């Protein structure tokens, strides 16, 4: 599966603001580059990213070719209850990746 890295604090206090950092290995081919023979290299990017907290979507991003390769996405969430935070990436040519992280909220 495609390599992704997520950084979520293992535990937090109820109501605390947590920072979530995600990295995905992907060239994010823009579709504007050309080969040495002048042919366009077709677009191949991650198009969408969804983060869900115990099943409920809390953050969604639509990515375009202007996002740099190996996309980094950093955002915040409120630690409401213990459980699982899931991350889903999807993109061109059937690209898909998922990751999840457990969080304990005290």
């Amino acid at each position, binding site marked *: 599966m495609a*390599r992704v890295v997520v*950084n979520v604090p293992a535990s937090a206090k109820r109501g605390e603001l947590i920072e979530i950092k995600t*990295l995905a*290995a992907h*060239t*994010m081919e823009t579709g504007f580059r050309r080969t040495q023979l002048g042919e366009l290299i077709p677009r191949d990017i991650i198009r969408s990213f969804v983060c869900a907290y115990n099943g409920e979507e809390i953050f969604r991003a639509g990515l375009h070719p202007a996002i*740099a*390769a190996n996309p*980094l996405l950093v955002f915040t969430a409120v630690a409401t209850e213990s459980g699982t935070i899931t991350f889903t990436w999807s993109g061109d040519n059937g690209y898909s990746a998922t990751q999840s992280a457990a969080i304990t909220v005290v």
Partner: protein
Amino acid sequence: MVRRQRLFRDPVRRHHRRLRLRLAVLLLGFVGAAFAAEIPPAERRSGYEFMGRETRAMQDDETTNPGMLWVLDGEALWNRKAGAADRACADCHGDARASMNGVAARYPAFDATLRRPVDLEQRINACRTDRQKAASLAFESHELLALSAYLARQSRGTPIAVAIDDRTKRFLDAGRETFHRRQGQLNLSCANCHDDLWGRKLAGTPIPQAHPTGYPLYRLEWQSLGSLQRRLRNCLNGMRAEAPPFGSPELVDLELYLMWRARGMKLESPAVRP
């Protein structure tokens, strides 16, 4: 009749004196040029210091350093069995965090079989073919970069210390010669920019001192992780000189010289550079 007054009494002696003076200046110029080039050890600075604040932060924070994507893949490969011998790196070397600590800072290192220095990528491939009985990994392939990134990461913070002795001295000299030799259509040597003009701007960007303190590194220009040899070939192409193929002795000798030139500086792998 009074003798015509002259400013100097003896024209022949004056001529000789002038000749000696010119010769002395010429010799001093050559000698001066040979010594003025090298950067004094105390003035050496890593490419890290020539980058903007944000790029530095990208390198420092392992949660956002894209190089870590390769490091993690390298860790997976380290533990995966491979080849006819069905062995993983871990089967012989155990936990890389312990066994590989400090290793990357010593490469290129002398290889007794080949009787010449080899760099880390070549050492990894030697293990693959000899010990794992697996096919060697192509230069700049994802797998080879991942493994070398994983290994180099285990030496983050270690001072660079390549061994120069009777066996490796002549390769160091060959590398030094390459570094100082003018090459290519622009007739530039590495030293022209990186010894004499570091800190000045080229195409709006500061010229670094060219110390390989963070390889393999994530270069923003490549949008990927790459090896020192890839960077050297870039430079040579940029100078409109012929770039030797990956793995060639000329490149490894140059790597050896560059690592020796950076001796004592701490490894930052996997670094980030513009």
